[in-house]
């Protein structure tokens, strides 16, 4: 199995530790993971702003980088969803189709493809899980509260295997945090308010860490926590699954 790691642009620049944790986690599963050096961005920031027609360059680059892999894995539900829905290239449509089928968000790759049933990690803290919308509703990483259907959650399935970790309940388990890509600056007032409300739900329930499968939402929540001088930290789920805190 040839696995390629897609590191989204902002993770590469601001959260290298998330990419390192993802890489190490995949390697721990016995996989050889390829990291194409010429990768940049999935194109979502442009597409969600109405400029999908400008994403051709990002698309061809992505295909060039990853077409040779059986699976592509990324620690960002939102980028994965964008690629699944919008990766096209008139010149390489077959490869684009292959990649749309074969790209996975990290937690779904671990649970659905690798069928991981034991996680050897220890993280002795009270943790709140932020279910990012694109992962939850878009990739169906967990059941959403709108639907009348049995509950499940791939991130929870993994987190519940982590030694010492205590997952807290939330009043609104799947409310959007308000990040939303360019929404976070175009609609600053609503975005920040949504984020503050999301943070306080976690704080009310005694979270020491807020985690999730999408670093972009966590970056937004971290920005708010930091401004509030809160001791609560954000940590990507890959870092928890890869940690061994004694």
């Amino acid at each position, binding site marked *: 199995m040839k696995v390629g790691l897609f590191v989204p642009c902002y993770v*590469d620049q601001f959260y290298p530790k998330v990419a390192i944790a993802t890489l190490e986690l995949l390697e721990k599963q016995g996989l050889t993971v390829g990291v194409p*050096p010429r990768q*940049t*961005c999935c194109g979502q920031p*442009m597409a969600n702003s109405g400029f999908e027609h400008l994403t051709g360059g990002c698309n061809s680059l992505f295909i060039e980088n990853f077409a040779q892999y059986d699976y592509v894995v990324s620690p960002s539900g939102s980028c994965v969803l964008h690629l699944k829905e919008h990766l096209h290239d008139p010149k390489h449509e077959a490869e684009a189709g292959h990649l749309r089928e074969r790209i996975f968000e990290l937690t779904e790759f671990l649970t659905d493809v690798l069928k991981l049933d034991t996680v050897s990690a220890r993280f002795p803290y009270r943790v709140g899980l932020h279910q990012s919308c*694109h992962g939850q*509703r878009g990739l169906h990483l967990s059941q959403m509260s*709108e*639907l009348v259907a049995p509950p499940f959650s791939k991130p929870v399935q993994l987190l519940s295997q982590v030694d010492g970790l205590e997952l807290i309940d939330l009043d609104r388990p799947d409310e959007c945090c308000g990040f939303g890509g360019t929404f976070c600056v175009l609609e600053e007032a*609503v975005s920040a308010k949504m984020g503050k409300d999301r943070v306080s739900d976690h704080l009310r329930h005694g979270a020491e860490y807020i985690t999730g499968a999408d670093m972009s939402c966590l970056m937004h929540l971290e920005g708010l926590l930091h401004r509030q001088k809160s001791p609560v930290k954000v940590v990507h789920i890959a870092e928890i699954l890869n940690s061994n805190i004694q």
Partner: protein
Amino acid sequence: MNTQTLDHPELADRFNKDEARVDWHDQTLWWVRQKRDKAAHALPEWESLREAASQIKHNVLANLDEYLLQFEANAQRNGITVHWAADAEEHNRIVHQILTENGIPKMVKSKSMLTEECHLNEYLAEHGIEVIDSDLGERIVQLAGEPPSHIVLPCIHWKKEEIGVLFHKHLGTEEGCADPQILTGAARLHLRDTFLTRRAALTGVNFAVAETGEFVVCTNEGNADMGAHLADVHIASMGVEKIIPRREHLSVFLRLLTRSATGQPITTYSSHFAKPRPGQTMHLILVDNGRSIQLGREDFRNSLKCIRCGACMNTCPVYRRSGGHSYHSAVAGPIGAILAPNLDMAKNADLPFASTLCGSCSNVCPVKIDIHQQLYKWRQVLVQEGHVTAAKTVSMQGMTTVLSRPGLFHLAGSVGRRLMKWFPSLVNNRLNPWYKQRDMPAPPSESFSEWYAKNRKPS
């Protein structure tokens, strides 16, 4: 370019100046959303009901012309006068004409978002006709001189204390009285008087049955019935998409509508109007107003399935925190954001961007409209049609250049991070909307790619 003075971000910013109010608005609507969840989860067949409703509407939209003609013929046979209105203007003219012909200067009206869309009240007022809204919530916003902020709960943004002040001024309730029971009592007396003295009543239409030529009006207050039964002239206004093929299909929609709207199993009154009673005349106006254009836009056609339950607004985290008026359109919230650009792209170009594309709306929608996908598609259309600022286009082009060239990306990244480290005030300033309430992430000393090049063999 936007032609209205304030767009969604600015109006939302204003709404957010009073954070306690935003919290209250959010919690009130969330409470309604939770009632909806309870009602939906009590029906194991909920998801199949949604699917059935969506399919029935699909069939309606695919054969709309036939169903409309069938409905018209049956309605006429029942003794209803049927009118067709191409747009809002024509609709308003028809209503006015019916009233003039009957020498009626005052009309009572029950809830109808279509008449809001057509700005009927303003039109009639200009022509010297007084309209009293009989839905309690609509009456409140009417007294306040505002449009409804929600399609099902028109005055959800008003607190009872504020309604007390309004009623004291207009209906003579005691000063400082905020007791909902007393206030409702006062409104009831006031409206009773209106019902008894108006000779014309206008109602909306929730469903019109092609097979029988009847229409169904759903209310919780019985105000539509009170108006229609007492009036000599009953006018009903409906958008052409409100048709359903057969009576049996009603069961699907009636079960979904109020559960989605308020969490009730069914509206208190679901009244069937099939023909005028002796001595009464009944007019029905079929209004297009942009609907056939939307029908022709394949990507946006599904929006015509909407049964106006408001569930998408209650669930929308943006709507709950920006208020209905921030959408500056008769229908607010996620569904409004995909309907409004159809009517006027330039004026409503901001609305499809007032979303994080979280997708909650699409999944709560009882007729399964792909709302968030349509928001995404509208963004593409609006940009293509030039309804976007030049600054945004330039920044997007710049971003594309950097992001599609790996060398440039890594260079820009490391320069950017260094600058952020050395001169944090470059990004941490008030011109950066991110920084207003949030801190920027602390720039790491090396990017992942730099770390990887040092620590692993390149692949």
